């Protein structure tokens, strides 16, 4: 064997030994190393990046501001007329006042994250003095369609919808007393989760990152990306197309409350699952005989899917069912007596609350000697918009004193779409006058000034 052959064989042997030795190791899982301080060049680059980001936000602001409106509302401020003690009382504390950005959908309409019976107020310094009016509310998603002051320069329809792809920087728009606030926000690759109130997954974001629910999110190119919502205590971003779809639906249908199927549902325990021979779903405990699904569902039915998606919990099922819009169909996969059924709920016969159609969402009863007493007011209805509350006594409707419910219904039904009816009411011994608009959503867009 020559010298060079021996040397080559020795090299091969050494390599084999090294190979065997190295193969005994495992690559360690190392935590990411965070530099204690950035190098000077990196800091300079970062400064330039921040400057560039500020410029981008300023550009986006000028582009999207015509599409936005700020809303001032306060759920706790007592009704007018008010006295000085009311103004100085706790009801007018700064904490009670909320400012929310609204996204203009039409020339005089906007969508905003406004829920419940919060009352709107004119913005201080707003020359128009127009008070926004709630036209319709989606109480499941807690979004409202509002009548806002017309802005000839608004070009909301030109605002395109975008899809939020993370990680990225976005522009978050918040409402403040001084108007709208724009600031950049980094949205990391947070997890998305499904919420029964929304069709598409929501993007979870850190609680510190966003100031308030209802903020609007735009891309650095000015595309509308979504709205900040709170679902089960988690701040998240709902997709833009769902927000706009909700606005379109509210425009077309007006207010619609959550769909109540008239059923009681309970979780499927292990024992119940074994007894019924199923492995997942929710159990129908009771079906109200007068409910809209009385002829479709029955007690002991196990719902496994709703519109093709599995049903895993009672809350999720009820919320997804409540999200149903009046004209839509709902398809359920039901296990009944061990067999699979596919059932369709069809159109709900009582999607609108009883009595709401002729009297703008009011349930009223006669109060002899006084007029008509309001028993209940549907949320988001014309009655609620006018400021009526349960317990109010309507003493005068227009020129008719002490109207009966039938008289009131007749007056309301003859009311023109853009007309208003002055109602004199008695509330807890105090008399006040309210303006009652025509029934429905988009038709009563022009509020009294």
């Amino acid at each position, binding site marked *: 064997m020559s010298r060079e052959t021996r040397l080559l064989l020795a090299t091969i042997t050494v390599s084999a030994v090294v190979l065997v030795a190295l*193969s005994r190791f495992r690559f360690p899982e190392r935590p990411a190393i965070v530099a204690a301080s950035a190098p000077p060049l990196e800091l300079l680059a970062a400064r330039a990046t921040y400057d560039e980001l500020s410029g981008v936000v300023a550009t986006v602001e000028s582009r999207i501001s015509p599409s936005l409106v700020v809303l001032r509302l306060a759920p706790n401020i007592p009704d007018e007329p008010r006295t000085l003690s009311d103004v100085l009382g706790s009801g007018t504390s700064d904490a009670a006042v909320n400012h929310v950005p609204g996204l203009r959908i039409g020339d005089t309409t906007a969508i905003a994250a406004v829920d419940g019976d919060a009352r709107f107020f004119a913005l201080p310094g707003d020359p128009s003095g127009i008070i926004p009016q709630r036209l319709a509310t989606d109480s499941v998603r807690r979004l409202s369609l509002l009548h806002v002051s017309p802005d000839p320069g608004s070009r909301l329809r030109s605002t395109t919808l975008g899809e939020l792809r993370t990680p990225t920087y976005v522009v978050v728009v918040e409402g403040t007393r001084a108007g709208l606030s724009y600031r950049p926000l980094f949205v990391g690759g947070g997890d998305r989760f499904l919420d029964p109130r929304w069709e598409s997954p929501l993007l979870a974001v850190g609680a510190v990152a966003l100031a308030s629910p209802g903020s609007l999110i735009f891309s650095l190119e000015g595309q509308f990306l979504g709205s900040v919502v709170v679902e089960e205590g988690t701040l998240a971003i709902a997709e833009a197309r769902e927000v706009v779809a909700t606005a379109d639906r509210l425009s077309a249908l007006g207010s619609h409350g959550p769909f109540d199927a008239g059923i009681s549902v309970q979780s499927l325990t292990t024992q119940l699952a074994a007894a019924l021979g199923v492995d997942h779903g929710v159990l129908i405990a009771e079906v109200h005989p007068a409910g809209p699904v009385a002829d479709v569902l029955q007690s002991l039915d196990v719902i496994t899917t709703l519109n093709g998606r599995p049903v895993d919990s009672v809350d999720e099922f009820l919320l997804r069912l409540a999200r149903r819009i009046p004209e839509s169909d709902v398809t359920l996969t039901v296990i009944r007596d061990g067999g699979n059924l596919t059932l369709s709920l069809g159109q709900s016969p009582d999607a609108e609350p009883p009595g709401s159609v002729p009297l703008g969402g009011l349930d009223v009863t006669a109060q002899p000697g006084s007029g008509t007493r309001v028993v209940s007011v549907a949320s988001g209805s014309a009655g609620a918009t006018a400021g009526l509350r349960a317990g109010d006594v309507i003493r005068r409707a227009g020129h008719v004193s002490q109207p009966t419910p039938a008289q009131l219904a007749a007056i309301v039904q003859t009311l023109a779409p853009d007309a208003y009816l002055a109602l004199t009411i008695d509330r807890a011994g105090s008399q006040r006058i309210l303006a009652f608009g025509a029934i429905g959503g988009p038709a009563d867009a022009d509020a009294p000034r």
Partner: protein
Amino acid sequence: MPPGSWRAFAPARHAALGFSEHAAPSLVFVLTGVVLGPELLDVLSVNLLAQFDPAVSVTLAVLGIFVGSGLSAAASHGRVTFWWVTGATLQGLITFGTVAAAMYLLLHQWGLPLPVDPLTGAAVLGLCSTVSAAVRETGSGTASNAARIADFDDLLLVALGAFAVAWLAGWSSLVVVVGLTLVAGVVIAVAGAALLAFSGTAPERSVFVTGTVFLLGGAAAYTGTSPLVSGCVAGLLWARMQRSVTALVDSDLKKLQHPLVVILLIIAGASIQFTYQLLWLAAPLVLFRLTGKLIGSLVTARLFGLPAGLLATYLAPPGLLGIALALNIQQVLSTGDTLLVSAVTASTVAAELLALVLVIFQPLALSSVEAA
């Protein structure tokens, strides 16, 4: 050191430093890329590097053309026989097998995170390790024969690289895709030659050559195939055409080659991410590449009657095509994890330095030359 031995090893020493006729000084430019890259000055940021993707494809096409034209020219002069190509392929396969097997064993045992599965990663690393630095050695002595074996191991990388790129690009029928790559190379080369035949002035000709090369690289990048193969086919075809056309193409391509190769090396250097994974991967890669080349030298030298030590000194310096192929694979992977490119580039630089040491201090080689 005996008189004359230094001169006898000059080509191998040049190759080790990257200063050969077909190779830029890789060490210098790779280090330049490292300094300018995201890891240090960040002049060549990640976003900026992404803009250089077309340059990588075009450079690969140019390198492929030189491989093809070199093969054709050597064959036409009777200096290349089937046996030399066989020897080059044999030692390349031995290197490929050695590196791939060793790296697969290590990657499998280590559980080291890679942008591809361990088998594919080991195969890519093995393939990029097969190539040796090109050395222009005229004459017909022992050293010349060893240099030719080192030269023609490019063919193995070009051929297997075509399949690797098509596989990683997600093509299902690899043979069909490689066949289409060959056809595309032929079509573009013929079109380019037809344009050149009608070109009247030197600037006009340069535009046509440049356009054809860009088309070769761009078409391959668009279809997720290997620009090296397209370029190699075009190089073979042009070399077989009229001598005037071949000479014109060669002179114009040489103007393109050096700037593009410099860009390629700087991009490779800037792509290096200094991580623990790189350390784990690059160090054994250098060792097992050297081992593979030494085994390949031993076997091939026995078959062809060459001194094994001498052949090893020619095979040890790594070539640029390994880095080029790694960048090509990085392109088709479309991932921000540049571990494979980093490992190939870092190991190439380390292997260059190791080869230089081997050339200077290899007593076996000296004795072999004296004997020759």
